């Protein structure tokens, strides 16, 4: 029929498609996976995080964020902002340096890479000579000092990366002047640290791995002072007034050295092992900052007693008599301190710590140093995410109540505003309030504000209180006993250890109009909750539902049901459970839906489904869908699958740990690390090479899990005859079967006492037997039926009950439209039979035209197992557009995808990050922000004195471009022509 369609019609439709659909990946929400470097610009007030996968992310005020990705797939090991500029330099694992800038473009800033550079040593020199281990971005903004593994310090002019060979500080120069009595003079080892004198930019201290520190004058090109520390050096800090240098060492000690003119004064002023007596771990970084009045702040990471607390990740903060060891739940990557004042030289105000799994900011000016809640970079995975649910356009009333409940939970946070405030957020206010609900392994549900660029935590619901678990509810973070040494204090919310995996949340459904919420979990528990602004003490009545309905010959071998607390439980304001259904067998709940108008909850597991009346608190219907020959479903194989997954996860963790520990000794052990990597890759390759074959067999009713309930749907439609619509419940199974039940609801005035009844009305067995993943009823206009209460709240057009309704059954393989009430196939779209992909996720979405506001249409948004997203038109089930979205290998990403009602979607790109994408031309949330070059009142170069950010960056760019071209020509002369071409193309594109 396509052949006969008129050309005009087709192009008109194509034009319309362009107005309706467009694919965009705009934002990554959450916390970057495997962060590896941290940088901060006090003048820009921007924070930069580099990751192991080569991404660089900048954050300022909430909503201000930038992201860049290095072409090399190498970890970012260091990030340094050029002081008082909008440039920053990154050092990668592959020893390349990259210059990035924030360039103004059409009133917005964008992060661009403007140059790259790799140190080239003299011919024939070993690679260690040029392997960069320390970077100092000089305050002049024109120099980079690069300390290397070979012990040399190279000086490079930026931007443009011009090596100033004559100014390099070679190891020989330094070694020559080292006092004879210094033990380690024969081998100073690599450059571990480079610091500038805060009051004299011409002086830098070079710290060598062996322990020796040399204060070098850049003007005179000679050593001024030698500091002969003998312990392996970890870090160096030059105090604010320039009179002392602090050094921290691998034995857990730190020393303070007087900076004087003469070399004789080489005795350390003060040496201390803070957690001493017994051997301690290294202090990896030390900072000392003065306060206006009173003693300075001393902060350092590590240094814990090796035997007893060697596994803790701690930062110690000492101020006056206060001494706290902040105890983090994951490895510390780096930290810095934000200071008050216009020039950022005042009192320390906040400590910012980047640990492997979260960013923690501690208010240093409020007593007890409380944590400041982060508006972004929140660890989504504080407990592993097990499911997500998105609700668009939340009514203001509900929104405010959720926020109020959340605020009551956040009393332990600091009242101080977020201290990182760089840039301006120019994005328009989000058009509506959207909630993203994430269910977690520990039985919590987190409510996120997903309206805008920042995924902001609003409220956290815990369901564990309803049940008896092994964990003591009082066993929380504040365990620090009086007089304990070291004085630990737990900080951070990342806690991957779940007390009881049965608590895990598997399905969530929230009715935004009534505030009723239902959540279902791993052990077949279904909780119905309502929003209450007051705390309440109540018992939760449990109702056990036997889904087997007398099916015999099976034995459940999975986990047991959760124990319900018999006594009343005090629930804080927020969502409070008032009804509980427990499925028997307690298999994981696989489908859940709630109809707030009818006050019914439908739930399904691998054994069957049930309908629960939460007003009368009784079950209306139980249907067993289990196939008698399906042994697997009975035995609870999900737990077995899980255990395999768990053991896999553990072994991967082991591998990762070993890689991390290898990485720790970065410099000397690169060869070893590479070897380990190579071995790992070989192992993986071998795994992949194992012959994989797939069985080709038609699906049969005997297959496992054919009875698993995949989807449940409430609809008010024509089930029995075409003149009377009735409430109905639809259920779709893994075996391609659809069950329809006609519901009889008592009139409203008798709703509380007359029973709700359900009668079987229809059963459809799809011949292709593919799992049914979605059911939608379309009204007389072919539009999907509105949500319950949507019409009552005047937020949707009431459905057309005049024309005949249609039933849309979405299986993993086909989209099929049937007529109602007589079920006969009307049309269909085959997916799998044609291109081999299967439907993984499906949602109904509304698309508005970008051209005219009054035109819009409903469509099905579909994610396939190939990671492609499709839009399928309604009611004609025609494929509209298709975009690749997720890598097909990224199974967890595909499984985590959730669609919004307006053609957007979220999926996990790592355990801690959601990628947000949009298929709609109208609803697009993306960061729009501007960062201006800082006003610098200092005396340095005129470039910085230009107030206009855009023009100054422009000039910088010009300069750098020229330099870049020069450098490239030079490079190409050396034979590196490919990169020359590449870069030319790159700059042309830029």
């Amino acid at each position, binding site marked *: 029929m396509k052949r006969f369609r008129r050309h005009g019609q087709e192009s008109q439709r194509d034009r319309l498609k362009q107005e309706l659909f467009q694919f965009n990946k705009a934002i990554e929400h959450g916390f970057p996976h495997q962060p590896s470097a941290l940088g901060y610009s006090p003048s820009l007030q921007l924070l930069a995080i580099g990751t192991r996968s080569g991404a660089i992310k900048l954050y300022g005020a909430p909503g201000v964020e930038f992201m860049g990705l290095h072409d090399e797939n190498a970890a970012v090991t260091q990030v340094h902002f050029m002081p008082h500029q909008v440039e920053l330099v990154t050092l990668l694992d592959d020893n390349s340096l990259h210059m990035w800038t924030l360039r103004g473009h059409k009133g917005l800033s964008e992060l661009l890479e403007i140059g790259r550079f790799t140190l080239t040593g003299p011919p024939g020199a070993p690679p260690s000579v040029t392997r960069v281990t320390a970077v100092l971005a000089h305050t002049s903004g024109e120099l980079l000092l690069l300390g290397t593994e070979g012990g040399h310090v190279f000086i490079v002019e930026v931007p443009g990366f011009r090596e100033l060979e004559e100014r390099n500080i070679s190891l020989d120069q330094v070694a020559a002047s080292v006092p004879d009595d210094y033990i380690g003079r024969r081998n100073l080892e690599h450059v571990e640290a480079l610091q500038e004198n805060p009051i004299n930019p011409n002086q830098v201290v070079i710290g060598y791995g062996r322990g020796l520190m040399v204060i070098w004058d850049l003007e005179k090109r000679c050593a001024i002072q030698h500091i002969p520390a003998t312990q392996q050096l970890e870090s160096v800090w030059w105090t604010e007034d320039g009179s002392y240098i602090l050094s921290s060492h691998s034995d857990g000690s730190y020393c303070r050295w007087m900076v004087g003119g003469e070399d004789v004064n080489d005795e350390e002023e003060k040496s201390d092992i803070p957690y001493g007596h017994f051997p301690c771990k290294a202090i990896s970084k030390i900072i000392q900052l003065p306060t206006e009045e009173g003693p300075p702040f001393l902060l350092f990471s590590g240094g814990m007693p090796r035997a007893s607390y060697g596994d803790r990740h701690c930062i110690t903060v000492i101020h006056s008599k206060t001494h706290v060891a902040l105890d983090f739940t994951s490895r510390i990557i780096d930290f810095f301190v934000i200071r008050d004042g216009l020039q950022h030289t005042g009192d320390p105000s906040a400590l910012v710590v980047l640990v492997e799994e979260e960013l923690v900011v501690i208010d240093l000016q409020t007593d007890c140093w409380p944590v400041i809640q982060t508006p972004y970079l929140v660890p989504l995975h504080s407990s592993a995410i097990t499911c997500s649910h998105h609700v668009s356009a939340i009514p203001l009333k509900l929104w405010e109540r959720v926020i109020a409940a959340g605020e009551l939970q956040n009393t332990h946070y600091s009242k101080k505003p977020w201290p990182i405030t760089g840039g301006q957020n120019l994005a328009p206010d989000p058009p509506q309030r959207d909630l993203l609900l994430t269910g977690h392994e520990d039985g919590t549900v987190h409510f996120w504000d997903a309206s805008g660029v920042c995924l902001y935590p609003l409220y956290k619901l815990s369901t564990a209180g309803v049940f008896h678990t092994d964990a003591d509810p009082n066993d929380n973070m504040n365990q620090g006993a009086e007089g304990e040494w070291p004085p630990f204090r737990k900080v951070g919310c990342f806690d991957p250890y779940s007390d009881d995996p049965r608590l895990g949340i598997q399905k969530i459904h929230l009715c935004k109009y009534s505030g009723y919420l239902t959540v279902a979990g791993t052990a077949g528990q279904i909780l119905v909750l309502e929003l209450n602004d007051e705390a309440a003490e109540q018992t939760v009545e449990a109702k056990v539902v036997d889904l087997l309905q007398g099916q015999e010959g099976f034995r459940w071998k999975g986990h047991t049901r959760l124990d319900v607390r018999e006594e009343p439980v005090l629930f804080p304001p927020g969502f409070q459970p008032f009804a509980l259904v427990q499925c028997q067998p307690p298999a994981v709940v696989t489908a859940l839906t709630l109809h707030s108008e009818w006050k019914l909850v439908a739930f399904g597991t691998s054994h069957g489904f049930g309908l629960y009346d939460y007003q009368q608190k009784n079950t209306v219907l139980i249907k067993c869908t289990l196939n008698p020959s399906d042994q697997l479903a009975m035995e609870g194989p999900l737990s077995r699958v899980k255990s395999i997954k768990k053991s896999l996860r553990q072994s991967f963790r082991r591998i990762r740990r070993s890689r991390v520990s290898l990485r720790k000794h970065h410099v000397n052990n690169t060869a070893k690390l590479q070897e380990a990597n190579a071995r790992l890759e070989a192992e993986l390759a071998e795994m992949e090479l194992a012959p994989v074959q*797939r069985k080709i*067999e*038609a699906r049969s009713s005997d297959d496992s899990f054919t009875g698993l309930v995949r989807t449940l749907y409430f609809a008010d439609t024509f089930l029995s005859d075409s003149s009377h619509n009735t409430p109905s419940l639809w259920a779709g199974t893994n075996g391609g079967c659809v069950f329809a039940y006609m519901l009889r609801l008592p009139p409203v005035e008798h709703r509380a006492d007359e029973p709700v009844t359900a009668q079987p*009305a229809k059963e459809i067995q799809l011949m292709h037997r593919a799992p049914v993943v979605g059911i939608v009823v379309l009204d007389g206009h072919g539009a999907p039926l509105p949500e319950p209460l949507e019409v009552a709240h005047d937020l949707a057009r009431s459905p057309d009950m005049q024309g005949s309704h249609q039933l849309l059954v979405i299986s993993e393989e086909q989209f*099929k439209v049937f007529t109602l009430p007589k079920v006969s196939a009307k049309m269909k779209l085959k997916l799998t*039979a044609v*291109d*081999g992909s299967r439907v993984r996720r499906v949602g109904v979405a509304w698309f508005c035209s970008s051209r005219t506001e009054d035109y819009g249409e409903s469509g099905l948004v579909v994610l396939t197992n190939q990671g492609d997203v499709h839009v399928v038109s309604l009611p004609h089930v025609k494929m509209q557009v298709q975009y690749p979205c997720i890598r097909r290998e990224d199974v967890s990403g595909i499984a985590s995808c959730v669609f919004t009602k307006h053609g957007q979607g979220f999926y996990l790109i790592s355990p801690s990050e959601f990628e947000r994408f949009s298929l709609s031309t109208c609803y697009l949330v993306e960061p729009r922000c501007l960062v201006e070059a800082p006003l610098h009142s200092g005396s340095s170069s005129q470039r910085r004195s230009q107030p206009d950010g855009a023009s100054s960056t422009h000039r910088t760019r010009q300069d750098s471009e020229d330099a870049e071209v020069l450098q490239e020509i030079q490079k190409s002369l050396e034979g590196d022509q490919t990169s020359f071409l590449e870069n030319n193309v790159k700059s042309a594109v830029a």
Partner: protein
Amino acid sequence: MNKNHRVQSSRSLSAVEVKSKFGAEFRRFSLDRSKPGRFDEFYGLLQHVHRIPNVELLVGYADVHGDLLPINNDDNYHKAISTASPLLRLFLQRKEEADYTAFGTDSLTRKKNTVLSAVLLRPDTNRKKPPVIISLPRDFRPVSSIIDVDILPETHRRVRLYKHGQEKPLGFYIRDGSSVRVTAQGLEKLPGIFISRMVPGGLAESTGLLAVNDEVLEVNGIEVAGKSLDQVTDMMIANSHNLIITVKPANQRNNVVRSGGGGAASGSSGRSSDSGASYYGYSSQAAAASMPTHIIQNFPVDELESDDEDLVIEAGGEAEPIRRAPSNYSMPSLPRYEPHLNLRTATTSVSASALSINANGTLPTSGSSGSLSNTNATSTTSSPDRAMERRSLEEDGTVITL
């Protein structure tokens, strides 16, 4: 049905001449056409006339087209009697020495040097006769065929497997591999999908048309190049009711060689090589011929819908009719609520509707969509029963689309 009438009217003789051959011996006798009796009586008679009372026999006869077909139950016995014209030629074999491969379409015509074939081979005009129904459908059904011989390169083979809801598994596995192809850049090694294993006794093995290490090129007309193993697996399973695989056989010696071309050649390509290797391979001329060859040749994907027969069970009323949606997309002009029997008669053939009657064991009330209600009356009882019921019903569903 009309066929039967015609056959009967063409024959006035009430006796059927029987010429039975066992080894080198011939026996001649006659039977009453109107009262043929039961198969076991007939079997006893044969043992008696050949004086081989204790020998297990396999009885075959030559049908009007010269095909050797078996007689092993009442139905095909009656068919054999009723179609004998007037001579019925029987071929007896000892069961232990039986050559099953001898049965099937063209099985006798292939042996051109035998005396029999010279006698039995009919001119082509006879082929155009409407097919005859010889037995229960489950005994005679094509399970596989090579199709599109005329449009494919000789090195390729397009095999169609008919699943028919039978219990026999498709029974093969596929794997990733690489194949060397000639491309614009010269020889290139490309990833491909290969058959890795055949399940003994499975449909795929029993056809003899697919073999381990055959490269899969297309699935139901869609090229597999660029698709992952899992994608191809899903495509095959999604099409398993009517799976058409184009392979490049690993063994290139048994390729079908095209003979010159011309209308006759292409016309016969649709059933060029039905397998005779299996029990199901007693493939009848009837079934093969009832499928218009033009459908098979280019098989537009949408035209051969066998998975459309979703089963709908209505509950709540006394009658629980099964409706099969009119699903044929190639005929959009058909009214939606056409009673299914009529529709099928229109789209397939007389034989098909007759088959459905047999399979259901009930007579259709003409034009009523509730005609199958009796079979389903018990369907809302306990689920195992219903599962059984459903399976049999589904089977009938696929028969109809045959």
